[in-house]
């Protein structure tokens, strides 16, 4: 399959097309009107049918309470079922949300790099990050709600409910985006892509969550775990308890932060993403192989290799190469490698921007023998840190008005996105009819044995699901 990137280009089509003679002269329809509250939901919001009773709240169960493990197969099947039911308007909403999520994702990826991410690499999930921001939007009141709406690119008109972002529609659209990623048409014999998102809401004892807020989050993922624990006596111990809880519930071997959070925190909002992809026609190479971290240092890592018809091209002007590997029917793994080992930062600054998809060319697929490290990439980032890096330190800080989350305004200690991305060789026999044999003189040999960038892109909605770089695959295995 071929990413077209047309969705991004299409948004330019109306740039500056017309100006009204006077400011109030024309009806302005924001491009994303599908994401606003409509008149009926506004009527409900403005005229509650019940007298203003205090909203029902609950205290989460203690973190040591018995909890059933997450069943990733069940989550996958639910996503596929939902994706198959998408109507036209749902797909349009998904494309709109994807567009904004991509923009916010690139911006925060830049902040992640400027904050000094790990020496081994970096990874960011635009949909998870965007879902987190929208979740906080749903939990906020003004002025924080208006600030978040501005950040999410919906202009706020004072007192006008129909210009308010409907966070429920956005979270549902993000779930549709996940469904489009993992849904395979046709052949059920293919190993599925799996993506699971789990949200942990960790609260201080006595803090009560609103039922309505938690129900809203379920639109984003049903794997939702509100849990209570002592966050103040021993923050490091609290973090250890959380990490043990996550490991027990998910089984995912994630790189979770070890430092404790502020002792006056009453809420931690943590999102965990697990992506599993199988590269068809690839197999594990025996032993370990050399990967050059820089011009003088190499490490030994397990590698996978396969021959297939992939798109591949070199940008001689800017000195990088791109290989596109299909992952299932709609998704593509983009592998971007600079020609010089030390050039990763320059190529990243050049290509990982809002117009990434306009760099994607579309040459005919050719026989490629592709070799790359087996990828098990782990990364974590605190959204509060990224926002602070972008000069917005207070947006989700102590002064934020997040009163729609609980019975009192929470003090948020951490907003974590943790990601585990696994790309493995397929177990199937290599097809012998559709691809040339390994070592065929007509196959181009492409080996990723020095730092490279990657992205996972789904073409129907135009979503970039992951952006990242691999500097040292040994440290991320």
């Amino acid at each position, binding site marked *: 399959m071929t990413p077209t990137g047309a969705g991004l*280009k299409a948004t330019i089509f109306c740039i500056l097309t017309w100006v009204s003679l006077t400011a109030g002269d024309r009806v302005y329809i924001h491009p994303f009107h599908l994401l606003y509250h409509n008149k009926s939901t506004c009527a409900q919001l403005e005229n509650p049918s019940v007298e203003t009773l205090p909203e029902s709240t609950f205290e989460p169960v203690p973190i040591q309470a018995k909890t059933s493990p997450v069943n990733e197969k069940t989550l996958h099947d639910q996503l596929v079922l939902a994706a198959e039911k998408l109507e036209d308007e749902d797909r349009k909403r998904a494309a709109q949300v994807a567009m904004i999520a991509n923009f916010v994702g690139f911006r925060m990826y830049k902040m992640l790099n400027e904050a000094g991410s790990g020496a081994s690499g970096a990874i960011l999930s635009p949909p998870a990050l965007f879902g987190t921001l929208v979740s906080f939007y749903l939990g906020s009141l003004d002025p924080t709600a208006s600030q978040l709406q501005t950040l999410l690119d919906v*202009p706020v008109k004072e007192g006008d409910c129909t210009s308010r972002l409907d966070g429920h529609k956005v979270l549902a659209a993000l779930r549709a985006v996940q469904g489009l990623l993992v849904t395979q048409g046709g052949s059920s014999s293919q190993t599925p892509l799996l993506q699971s998102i789990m949200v942990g809401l960790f609260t201080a004892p006595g803090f009560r969550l609103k039922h309505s807020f938690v129900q809203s989050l379920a639109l984003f993922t049903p794997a939702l775990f509100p849990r209570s624990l002592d966050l103040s006596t021993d923050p490091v111990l609290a973090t250890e308890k959380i990490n043990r809880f996550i490991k027990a519930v998910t089984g995912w071997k994630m790189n979770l932060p070890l430092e404790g959070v502020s002792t006056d925190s009453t809420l931690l909002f943590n999102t965990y993403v697990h992506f599993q992809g199988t590269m068809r026609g690839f197999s594990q190479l025996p032993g370990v192989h050399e990967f050059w971290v820089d011009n003088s240092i190499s490490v030994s890592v397990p590698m996978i290799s396969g021959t297939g018809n992939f798109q591949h091209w070199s940008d001689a002007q800017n000195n990088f190469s791109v290989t596109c590997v299909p992952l299932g029917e709609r998704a593509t793994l983009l592998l971007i490698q600079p020609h010089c080992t030390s050039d990763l930062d320059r190529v990243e600054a050049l290509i990982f921007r809002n117009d990434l998809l306009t760099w994607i060319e579309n040459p005919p697929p050719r026989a490629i023998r592709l070799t790359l490290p087996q990828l098990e990439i782990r990364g974590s980032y605190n959204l509060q840190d990224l926002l602070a890096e972008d000069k917005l330190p207070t947006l989700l800080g102590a002064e934020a008005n997040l009163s729609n989350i609980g019975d009192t305004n929470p003090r948020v200690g951490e907003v974590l996105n943790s990601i585990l991305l696994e790309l493995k060789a397929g177990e199937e026999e290599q097809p012998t009819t559709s691809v040339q044999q390994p070592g065929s003189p007509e196959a181009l040999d492409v080996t990723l044995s020095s730092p490279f960038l990657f992205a996972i892109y789904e073409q129907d909605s135009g979503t970039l699901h992951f952006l990242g770089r691999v500097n040292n695959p040994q440290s991320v295995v």
Partner: protein
Amino acid sequence: MDRRRMPLWALLLLWSPCTFSLPTRTATFERIPLKKMPSVREILEERGVDMTRLSAEWGVFTKRPSLTNLTSPVVLTNYLNTQYYGEIGIGTPPQTFKVIFDTGSANLWVPSTKCSRLYLACGIHSLYESSDSSSYMENGSDFTIHYGSGRVKGFLSQDSVTVGGITVTQTFGEVTELPLIPFMLAKFDGVLGMGFPAQAVGGVTPVFDHILSQGVLKEEVFSVYYNRGSHLLGGEVVLGGSDPQHYQGNFHYVSISKTDSWQITMKGVSVGSSTLLCEEGCAVVVDTGSSFISAPTSSLKLIMQALGAKEKRIEEYVVNCSQVPTLPDISFDLGGRAYTLSSTDYVLQYPNRRDKLCTLALHAMDIPPPTGPVWVLGATFIRKFYTEFDRHNNRIGFALAR
């Protein structure tokens, strides 16, 4: 990003000897900042443009016969055939901004350093800093401009503005609210409106009107050339005249139908040999700030049916790329003459790609009365037809671009 500042260059070095035959002009000499090449260069080099050839051509544009009878070119960068922008300077010393020269609007605006970080789009554009300019004067009035694709909001300020080597004192917008869509994709920082004073928000006199009132231009016109592809010269705006290098034959003129905008009347739209629309006449705006051709939704659907195009994703029409060579021409009847686009003109195609579906550069745009309904002829049209905007005779001239 850092604001680039243009160093002042001695214009005297570029004068031809005949200038000195006018000693009274010499006495009134003033320093005029010239375009600094590298900031455009870095963008062009990023796209693999051969700088050697461009540099050779650059010198041609910096020659001027005198301080009156000027024809002043502004070089444009072309980004993917959708954004054409050139450089201006604002302030003393000049802060450089990339702007779209937009005949569909009449205000100059650029992002301000007072834009909140909540607007991510401000984080990736050059920002005007008034405290760095000795010629800044406060105004402070609020302003909002609505475009078909979004709105920008901010406040007015006054400062020196230099366009194509001509400096004027200008009231312009400092934008403090810059939406992601479309400005996160914008390679330009702001907009220089080339429309009429009546179109200007806030009662501001447009830049070109200030230039006209200086009486330095050869003619009260400006011309626009949009090149295809991103190679070499992306495009050109000529203040005070036109550039015969970029068109063939003579201009054919169409009078504007209103005295306060670049709007003309179209007497027919044909697909192939059939006239489908506008036989009773339609309002058309010739809009250099628009990427494509826009039509009211109901009209566009008729065209799309005739072309066999399908709607895909967000109001985007596509055709099978293999069918592009056999698609019919589209003709616009302007001033009694047919202006024809072939499929290679109205389909977005990228040489390095082998997509199955090609996007059409035609889109729906519904504008209510009294301003609408209108058609818009944007860059898709201007790439084929070099366009002269004549303020003296209130007409628009078209010639085949080359």
